[in-house]
């Protein structure tokens, strides 16, 4: 992974709570893969369409479409946000295989690990 400044931040995260920014910085500065989870969950909650009832507690098995009311456009927006934030690329096959929060987190971590290996 390329060296990053110690206070690595991203303007795209400006609207998120401080703990999400801190998690992102921890990932960027220390390569802490465990910190990615907080960012992914915050993004999932943020991009969830409105008008689909109150948000259920987000857990590993929470389904993006069935539980959180995601439609294909919201999924595309979420993926674009994560791709841009972490500078990675999710293929259509990757996206289709993701149904739950845990699967999304694993997918992002797998892609990030691939980046480290090829860096």
């Amino acid at each position, binding site marked *: 992974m390329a060296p990053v400044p110690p206070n690595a931040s991203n303007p795209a995260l400006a609207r998120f709570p401080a703990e999400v920014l801190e998690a992102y910085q921890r990932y960027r500065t220390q390569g802490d893969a465990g910190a990615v989870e907080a960012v992914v969950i915050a993004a999932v909650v943020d991009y969830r369409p409105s008008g689909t009832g109150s948000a259920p507690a987000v857990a590993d098995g929470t389904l993006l479409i069935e539980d959180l009311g995601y439609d294909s456009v919201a999924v595309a927006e979420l993926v*674009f946000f994560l791709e841009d934030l972490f500078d990675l690329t999710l293929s259509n096959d990757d996206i289709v295989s993701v149904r739950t929060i845990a699967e999304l987190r694993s997918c992002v971590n797998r892609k990030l690990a691939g980046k480290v290996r090829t860096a």
Partner: protein
Amino acid sequence: MNPVVTGVGFITPIGNDRASVERSLREGRHGISPAVFLGNPDLHVKVAGVVKGFEVDSPSWRDWSWPDDYDIPKEVLRGLAPHGLYAICAVDQALASAGLKHSDIAGDPTTGLYCASAGSAMLLHHNLAQMRAVRGVRGNPMGVVSSIAGTLNFNLAAHYRITGTVCGFVSACASSSHALGYAIDDLRLGRIQRAIVVGAEELNADSLLPFAHMRALSKQRDPRKASRPFDVERDGFVGAGGAVAVIVEDPRAASARRAVALASAAGWGQAADGYSVAASHPEGAGLLLAMERALADARIGPDDIDHVSAHATSTPVGDLAEAVALRRLFTSRNLRPPVAATKALTGHGLSVAGVMQAAFCILSIAGGFMPGNAHLGVAGAECEGLELPRDSLRRAPTTVLSNSSGFGGSNVCHVIAAPGKITG
């Protein structure tokens, strides 16, 4: 029987509701404010017709704010350009004004949507720059629907669940007059029973400054001098943003639901200059023919017109062409209907301009007044014989001619009449 207008909605530099717009028109209150673009105070553009109560400068809808009266879910916002936000607010007002709920039009195959938009240059630029920065690997998935010229029809059709006609018009400053005209035709042909017509434009560096590079904008910093149509010292137009919507209905359908007709859409006509990509024909040839065709469509003559809403943007060439055309139609017959140039108050809203003027005519008819020519000092010699009152008149017009002209020489004119005045 002619289609009738049953609702109007306004997000404009001179007010964000019918009452405040009407007050501004009656009192000659302008909505032009100092404006700095791209943080560069040295630009020649010093003022603009700015919509108040909205903050939409950011390319991200998450940074926008708008009046609390409008509840817009984020799955709608994510596909909108700034002018799309204006448009939804204007349509919501127009529907309420017509006594219609969203549920009345959702899924109704007899309701059509007629939009005028030039797209969002700001979002197009932002999204493509983002894509180019990563050499095409990724881009905003909403980039297309939020920024290209069909953005209004895409978004509003989905938001309001329109299942009748949906279409968009892109003839620059004549485009929302085209939208109104084709809505009227579809109503006359019985294809639909009700039309939502909306034009919208955003105001930012990307939408406006290219006109400065055409040398089309006023360089004045005094709002009272910057937009002064027909004045001998006019030096260009003042850009404006906003959205205006009107609800037009089949008269029988409107009557059946006991809707109040504000005015009737009595006729329209169009003709092109066949002359220049940007400049008007020097004698207003296309505009004159468009006015004659609108009158013929309404089956009336020039002597039936008792008020004219001029396109007049405050450019030297455009106002001259319109003045010549108006003199040929009216002055040559010893007719002097009061002519109003309301862009002195609003600035020039491009894609919204035509339907904005049409809606102003509707307010004039319903409210019993005629707007004046604010900021007009000495009229150019080409205006000799035209009646150009400075202040508004407390006199109700019954039959109004509203003019629009756009790039490429498109000219579109509408005859708007008091309900029942012209039966069609």
